[in-house]
């Protein structure tokens, strides 16, 4: 962290700019590649990787249709959801070992901001009074209850090892240990996080981002009544949420190669490595999406319970195993 100490405001501006450009700009592309890979694996040609951008443009160009039951919640929710997710994105160190908004919030704040987004979206989904909205909302908050303990426990292990819940400190402490980072405790926590991230970003076997089948949809059910620019904001928030989870995985579990200072070379290497890591992680999600069947919602406690159990095992390994 000391490398940034002399240039805090400059570092913030540079890193916020990079983060917005890389994560904000490329989040839809990442979704596009995931869909493309999934389609190829299913022997389909699939839409272009740029399709998510076209979807956003279409949304932006359309006027809004609103339920006659809806209250102002419907109008204010989409920007607030995007705001909460964006603030969370800026708390993750990606290119450098310092979060763009270092000191504004740690990993608990990040989890909290995602919860804020969920709260607003789950409320907005109830606003129109349709059955789909209620269904999506009810399932989303229930699944979140299974996700959150595992998510926090998986990350807490890394925090305990780093002696800090600050994500920048966690990344630099992890990177400093090099290959030694790969202890049993670390691997268990990473495995737990993978299971969790799949669920949290709305992928199979928990949710299917491509379906509008009422029996299975969760996130799509919640945004069913949104349209026009409001839908655009919510779709962008969903893309961001997905890239955020992948970036969080990189920061907490594979932080090698992040820039330690503001030198152009360091930042360039950091950015390039980040893109490689994100693309790899995205392909992993795509393979999972293509190969794993959707779990019945009643079976989710088993799946997410496994994730929490792995996270707990990781913590136990950290406490009881020497070294």
């Amino acid at each position, binding site marked *: 962290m000391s490398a940034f100490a002399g240039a805090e405001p400059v570092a913030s501006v540079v890193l916020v700019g990079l983060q917005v450009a890389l994560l904000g700009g490329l989040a839809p592309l990442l979704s596009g590649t995931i869909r493309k890979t999934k389609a190829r694996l299913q022997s389909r040609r699939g839409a272009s990787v740029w399709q998510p951008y076209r979807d956003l443009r279409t949304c932006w*160009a359309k*006027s*809004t*249709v*609103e339920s006659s*039951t809806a*209250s*102002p*919640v419907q109008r*204010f929710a989409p*920007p607030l959801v995007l*705001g909460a997710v*964006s*603030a969370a994105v800026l708390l993750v160190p990606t290119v450098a070992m310092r979060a763009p*908004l270092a*000191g*504004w*919030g*740690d*990993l608990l*704040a990040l*989890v*909290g901001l995602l*919860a*804020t987004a969920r*709260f607003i979206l*789950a*409320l907005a989904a*109830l606003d*129109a*009074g*349709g*059955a789909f909205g*209620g*269904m999506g*909302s*009810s399932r989303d*908050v*229930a699944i*979140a*209850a299974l*996700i*959150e*303990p*595992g998510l*926090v*426990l998986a990350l*807490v292990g890394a925090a*305990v090892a780093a*002696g*800090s*819940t*600050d994500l920048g*400190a966690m990344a630099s402490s992890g990177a400093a240990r090099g290959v030694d980072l790969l202890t049993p405790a670390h691997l268990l926590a990473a495995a737990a996080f993978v299971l969790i991230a799949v669920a949290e970003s709305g992928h199979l076997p928990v949710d299917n981002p491509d379906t509008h089948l009422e029996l299975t949809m969760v996130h799509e059910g919640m945004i*069913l009544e949104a349209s026009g620019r*409001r839908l655009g904001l919510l779709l962008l928030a969903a893309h961001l949420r997905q890239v955020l989870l992948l970036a969080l995985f990189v920061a907490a579990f594979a932080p090698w190669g992040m820039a330690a200072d503001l030198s152009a070379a360091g930042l360039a290497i950091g950015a390039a490595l980040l893109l490689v890591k994100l693309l790899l992680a995205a392909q992993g999600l795509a393979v999972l999406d293509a190969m794993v069947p959707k779990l019945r919602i009643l079976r989710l406690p088993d799946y997410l319970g496994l994730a*929490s159990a792995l996270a*707990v095992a990781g*913590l136990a390994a950290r*406490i009881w195993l020497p070294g």
Partner: protein
Amino acid sequence: MTAGGISDPGLGAALGPWLWTGALLVLAVAVVIGAVEGMSGRAPRASMRLSALGTLLIAAFGTLCLSGPGEVTASLGTALGFATIDVRYDALSGVFVLILGIVGLAASVAAIDGLSHEPSSALTGMAYPVFILSMVLVFGSASGFAFLLAWELMALSSAVLVIGARPSVEHLRSGYLYIAFTHLATAALVIAFAILWTQGAGDPRFSSWAAAAAALPPGARDLVFGLLVVGFGTKAGAMPFHVWLPRAHPVAPSHVSALMSGVMIKTGIYGLIRLGLEVMGPGPDWWGVLLIVIGSASAVMGILYALMEHDLKRLLAFSSIENIGIILLGLGAAVVLRAHGLASLAAVGLVAALFHSVNHALFKGLLFLGAGAVQHASGDRNLNRLGGLIRVMPRAALLFGVGAAAISGLPPLNGFASEWLTFESLIGLGGSTSIPPLVRSIGLLAVGALALTAALSLAAFVKATGMTFLALPRSARVAATAHDAARGELAGMGLLAVLCVGMGLAAGAASGGLTTLAGSLLGGVTEPPTAVTIGAATRPAGSVAPLLLAVALLGVAGAAGLASAAGGRRRIVRRVATWTCGILPDAVMEYTATSYAKPIRLFFRRVLLPERTVVTEYHPGSPVPHSMRYQGTVTHVFESHLFRPLHRVAIRGAQLVRRLQGGSLQLYLAYALGALVLLLVVAR
């Protein structure tokens, strides 16, 4: 009465006794006026106005104690020859007196308009000011006798308010259960106090009990601590002693529920800190572990039961159990960390507990007042019949939403700040290598329990808010009769909502102020108070700046909102009916509170043990059912497997004892004779 022994002269300190005496006098007048108003059957509005003034003075007094120009003490002399009635208000008292003042003010202001719906009698008219007054005394009692006196006054006056002026069977049963449990608490406390009292050579003052507690043998110390946990835990509503709480709080009028849930159960927390932490001093690890285990159980189970409720006030009552659990987690972490000499981390835990006590008082007061407004406006508080109230009471909906977001622990509001501190203290406990591995593991498991609690409380409060205010009303009566909230109710809620936001954004300053207090309570904290506030760098270094997070969130949201509102033709919003696959939308299609909680009911079926019965009725000779009724309940295990059997044993015991009291005079004379003979034999 020798009022005002003041340790530090100055304008602020000189003001203290005046404020205190003034508040007590105003409340005493409110008692008299409340009795007169209640006797004539009118709503005690003048008494409520006086109570509002009294609580305002209390809030000012609390601020004064907290900012610490000195302690305010008074002595009422020896009341019964063996006990003095001393009061002494220090900074710890100040925290709790302040929340009493603020929540009391909001509740009293709301009640001026809201009370016309409640029946009143002389007794209930008197009980409300007495209730507030007794809590002022509980938080300031400096001796065991004074404390128990105020404690019982508080229990009785609140019991009168729970039972109400025209009690139904439900009110009477709830009141009975409440009185039974509150006496269980007092019994445990009396024994604990008696041990400390005798060890302290008969000095009833808390100040002399610390030395007495230190001199006790370990077994007796453990016993006293256990009794304190039972006594104060029962009052706080911690599991498994919570059974009375979800019954008593909902049947009381909403402004009373706000005070009971917001402040009264905090007397248990205050007692645990005052006696369990300050008087008892450092103890073995299991003291803290006990608090952490009780805290985790209360938090997780409390919020699970809250989710299963469809009565808005019962939901809020169960969520109070959850929040007490969160407070106990911070307290437990503080106890363990202090025993291992990690004073500054221990201070984080204690600050978390104190801060969450304050925050919970603010948002739970707000939510109960909101529930009262909903009940008055719609005549219902069953979430399965409510809905769409945002259209008739938009301001109340917004304020309730702020409370719901705050209690769900969402940044940048106040609930997040204190939960963040709780998380940090538990993670710090789990990361401290000087603590035994088993205790560390328990600390980290509690982190998971707290995360689960946070996620479940989000679900519970999305449900409470959404089902009450959004979509279409789920019953014709609510749709037809609902109206806006009264001015006083909105004012009371508004005050608390502003404080919820303010305490969130200014969390750094608030927790910094509490750190000085926590340091002095734990003893031996020499670090400057800024070292453990939000935004600091003690291990585990983590920092949060809620104000900046709010700036980031609202900045992006504002930009996105403006951008999507710009651009001519595309701003047009068409309003059409909700898409329901081609049929006209109807409230029957909406998710209800019960269906909303169904996934969680199924996910957690092994602890909730849900039962469902479906009754299908047929006309004779017809294969088509003409009606189907569905009923679902969850099993409250502590009630069905612990207290029901205990209650049965107690009743059976009482019936056995009753045979002694057969009603025959000869038998009683024989008892007297027997006792005399026995005495003569023994005292020979």
